[in-house]
C-alpha cells in the first residue's frame, strides 16, 4: 500500500469575514424564516381584507401616512451605517466600525422614535377588529425584531469601543449588518400594507 495522499490546509486562515462564513449563511436562513412569517401574515391580511366590503372597519380611522413615510428616510439611510461598519469589520478598522455602528444606531433610533410617536395617532388597538389585530401584529412583530437588533448593535458597539474584540466579534459586526438589511428591507412591504393598502386596495367584486 502506498502512502495516503494528503491535502494540507495549514496555510488557510482560521477565520473569514464575508459571505463565505457559515455564520453569514446561518443568519441568511433565519432571515428566510422571518421573511416567510411576514409573507404569510401579509397573505392572511389580504385574505381577510378581500372578503369584506367596508375597510377600514367602521370606527377605525384611515392611517396617517406622513410620519411613517418620513421615517423611511432615516431608516433606509441607517442601512448605509451598517454597510460602512461591515466593510470596516472586513478591514479591521476600529474607527470605521465605531462610525458605522454609531450612524446606524442614531438613524435607527430616530426612525424608531418617529414610529412610536406615530402610534399615538392610530385610534384602534388589536382588540378592536381584524384590521386592529393585523395592524398591531405587523407593527408589534417588526418592532420586536427592530428593538432586539438595536440592543445587539448597542452591545456590539460597546464591545468594539472597549477594544476587547477579535475576529469573532468582527464577523458579528458583519453578520449584524445582514440582520439590519433584512429588517429595513422587510419593512417596505409591511409599510405599504399597513399604511397604504386601506387607501388603494378595493374589495373584489
Amino acid at each position, binding site marked *: 500500500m502506498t502512502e495516503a495522499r494528503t491535502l494540507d490546509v495549514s496555510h488557510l486562515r482560521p477565520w473569514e469575514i464575508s459571505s463565505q462564513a457559515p455564520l453569514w449563511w446561518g443568519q441568511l436562513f433565519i432571515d428566510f424564516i422571518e421573511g416567510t412569517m411576514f409573507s404569510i401574515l401579509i397573505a392572511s391580511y389580504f*385574505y381577510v381584507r378581500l372578503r369584506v366590503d367596508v375597510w377600514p372597519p367602521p370606527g377605525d380611522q384611515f392611517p396617517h401616512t406622513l410620519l411613517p413615510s418620513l421615517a423611511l428616510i432615516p431608516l433606509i439611510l441607517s442601512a448605509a451605517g451598517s454597510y460602512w461598519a461591515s466593510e470596516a469589520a472586513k478591514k479591521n478598522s476600529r474607527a470605521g466600525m465605531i462610525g458605522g455602528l454609531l450612524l446606524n444606531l442614531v438613524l435607527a433610533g430616530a426612525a424608531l422614535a418617529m414610529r412610536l410617536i406615530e402610534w399615538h395617532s392610530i385610534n384602534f388597538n388589536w382588540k378592536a377588529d381584524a384590521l386592529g389585530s393585523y395592524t398591531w401584529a405587523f407593527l408589534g412583530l417588526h418592532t420586536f425584531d427592530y428593538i432586539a437588533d438595536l440592543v445587539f448593535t448597542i452591545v456590539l458597539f460597546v464591545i468594539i469601543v472597549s477594544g476587547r474584540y477579535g475576529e469573532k466579534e468582527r464577523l458579528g459586526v458583519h453578520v449584524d449588518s445582514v440582520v439590519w438589511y433584512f429588517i429595513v428591507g422587510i419593512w417596505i412591504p409591511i409599510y405599504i400594507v399597513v399604511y397604504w393598502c386601506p387607501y388603494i386596495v378595493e374589495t373584489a367584486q
Partner: protein
Amino acid sequence: MKPAQDVLPNVPTCEQDIADLERVWRHPRGIGGWLSYTTHQAIGMRYIVTAFVFLLAGGIEALLMRTQLALPNNTFLGPDRYNEIFTTHGTTMMFLFAVPMMEGFGIYLVPLMLGTRNVAFPRLNAFGYWMYLAGALFLYWGVFTNAAPDMGWFAYTPLSGPQFTPGKRADYWAQMITFTEVSAMCVAAELIATIFKQRAPRMSLNRIPLYVWAMLIQSFMVLFAMPAVMIASSFILSDRTVATHFVNPAEGGDPLLYQHVFWFFGHPEVYIIFIPALGFVSAIVSAHTRREVFGYTAMVLSQIANGFIAFGLWVHHMFATGLPQIGEAYFTASSLMIAITSGVQIFCWIATLWTGRPRFTTALHFVYGFIAIFVLGGMTGVMLASVPLDLQVHDTFFVVAHFHYVLIGGAVFPLMGAFYHWFPKMTGRLMDEFIGKLNFWVLFIGFNLTFFPMHILGLKGMPRRIYTYPPEAGWGPLNHLATIGAFILAIGGAIFLANVFWSRKYGRIAGNNPWDADSLEWAAASPPANYNFEYLPAATSRSPLWVPPEDRTFVTGLRNDRREVLVTTLMDAEPHHRYVLPPPSIWPFLTAVAVTIGFAGSVFNAWYVTWGSILTGICLIGWFWPRRPLELEP
C-alpha cells in the same frame, strides 16, 4: 459479509494529534457540564432517545383508542377522554416523535457523512434540543393535569377558540407548537449551513450522499413551512389570550383562513417527515445491495421537485369546505403530480435492488416493507386527490388508513431500517439479525392487520374521531380485527426495544464498517469519537469508501488544540478557510430556560412575553460575549 475492516489503514496516526483531539473535544463534567454538551453525536442521541420516549407515549395512546373501539358501545373511555387521547396521539406523533426523530438522525449522521467534526452552530444545536424538550414537557404537563388538548391535532377554529374550548387546553397545544417549531428551525438553519459550507473537500454537489440531499431538502422545507404553523398557532393563542380577532368572524376575522395557514404547513409537514426517510432508504439500499443507487441525478431532482410540489397542494385537505371549483381542479392536479416524482424514486430503488447484489438483512427487509406499504398509501393518496371520492370518504377511517400507510410505511419502516443500519455506528455493536427479522414480520403483519381494515371501515361510512358506535352499524368485527392488529404492532415494538437493549450489551462487535458501505460515516470509529475523524477525509468520489485505500486523500494542517473544522466552497467544496467552533457552553441551556419562562408564562399572562424577552436578551448577551483568546493564532 466482509469482516469488519479498518478503513483508514494507511494514514499515519500520530499519538500527539489524537491526545490533543481527545482533550479539546472532551465533554465537560458534572451536571452543569452535562447541560453544556455541544457535540452533534450527544445532541443527536438526545433527540433520538427523547423522540423514542414520545413514540412510546403516542403508541400507548393509540392502544387506548383501539381498546375503546374494539367493541360497539364500549365504555372503556368516555367521549371527553377519547377526544383528549386522539388529539394527544396525533400531536405527539407529529410534533414530538416524527419531526424530532428525523432531526435527531440528521444531527447525528450529517456531519459524519460530510466528513466534518460537528455542525456549523453547535450551541444553537444544543439550544434547539432544550426547546424541544421544554415544549414536549409543557404539553405533557397539560396531559397529566387533566388539561390535555381535545380539539384534534390540527386545532381547527372556531372549535379551538375561547368560546368552545375554555380553560387552557388549546393554549398548551398552541404554545407547544411554538417550542417545537423553534427547535426544528434551529436544526434546519444549522444543517443547511453545515451542508453548504462544511463538506469534505471535493464533495461537490453531485457527490453529496443521497441521505444528506434528503436532509438538505427537508431543512429548506422546514424554513418555509414551519413559520406558517407558528402564525396559525399564534392566531389561536392571541385570540384566546389577548382578545385579537384573527380567526373571529364576528369582528372580520376568518376561521377558514386558519385552515389555509395550518395546511400550508401541514402538508409540507408530511414531506418533512418522510423525505429524510427516503434518504434512509437510499443509504440502506446502496449499502445492502453493494452498488450505488441507480439514477442519482433523477433521484435528487425528484426529491427537490417533491419539496416544491409539497407547497402547492395544501388545499386538498380542505375539499369539503366549499371552495371554488377552479381551485379544486388545480389542487387535484397538483396532488396527482406528486405521484410522478415519488414514482421516479420507487423506480430507482427497485432498479438498484434488481441490478445489485442484495443481502437480505433486517434493514433491507424494512426497505421492502416500506416499498409495499408506501406504494399502497400512495395509491389511496391518488384516490383522495379526486374531489368526488374525497368528499365521499372525507373524515372517515379511509383517510385514517391512508395517512397511516403513508406515514408509518413511508417514515417509520425506513426509520426502523435506519436503526438496524446505523445502530452499529452509534453503539459499536450490531443488532441481532434473527430478532430483527422477527421484529420486521411482527410489525409488518401487525401494521397491515391494524390499518388495512380501516380502508373498508371508511368505505362503509365509519367516521373518524368517534368514541364509540352502535352494534347495528356493522363495524364491530373489522374494528375488533384492527385492535388485535394494534396489539401485535405493540408486541413488534417491544421486540425492537428488547433487541436494542440486548444488542447494546451482547451484540456482535461491529468494527468501523460492518456493512462495507460507501459513505464517510463508516470511516469513523464505532461509536465515533467526539471529533469524528482523526484526519478529515476528502471525497474523491461519490462513494468515497469504495475507492481503493491507496487512492484516498486526507486533510492535514488543521489545528488540534482547538475545535477547528474546514470550511469549503458551496459548489465544488474546495477548501476555503478554517473555522474554530466554540467550546461547550451553559448559555444555550440558560437561554432555553429564559425562553421557556416567556413562552409558558404567556399562556397565563401576556406580560410574560416581556419578562421572557428581557431574560432571553440577557442570556443571549452572555452567549455572544467575547471569549478568550480574542485574536485567533493562525
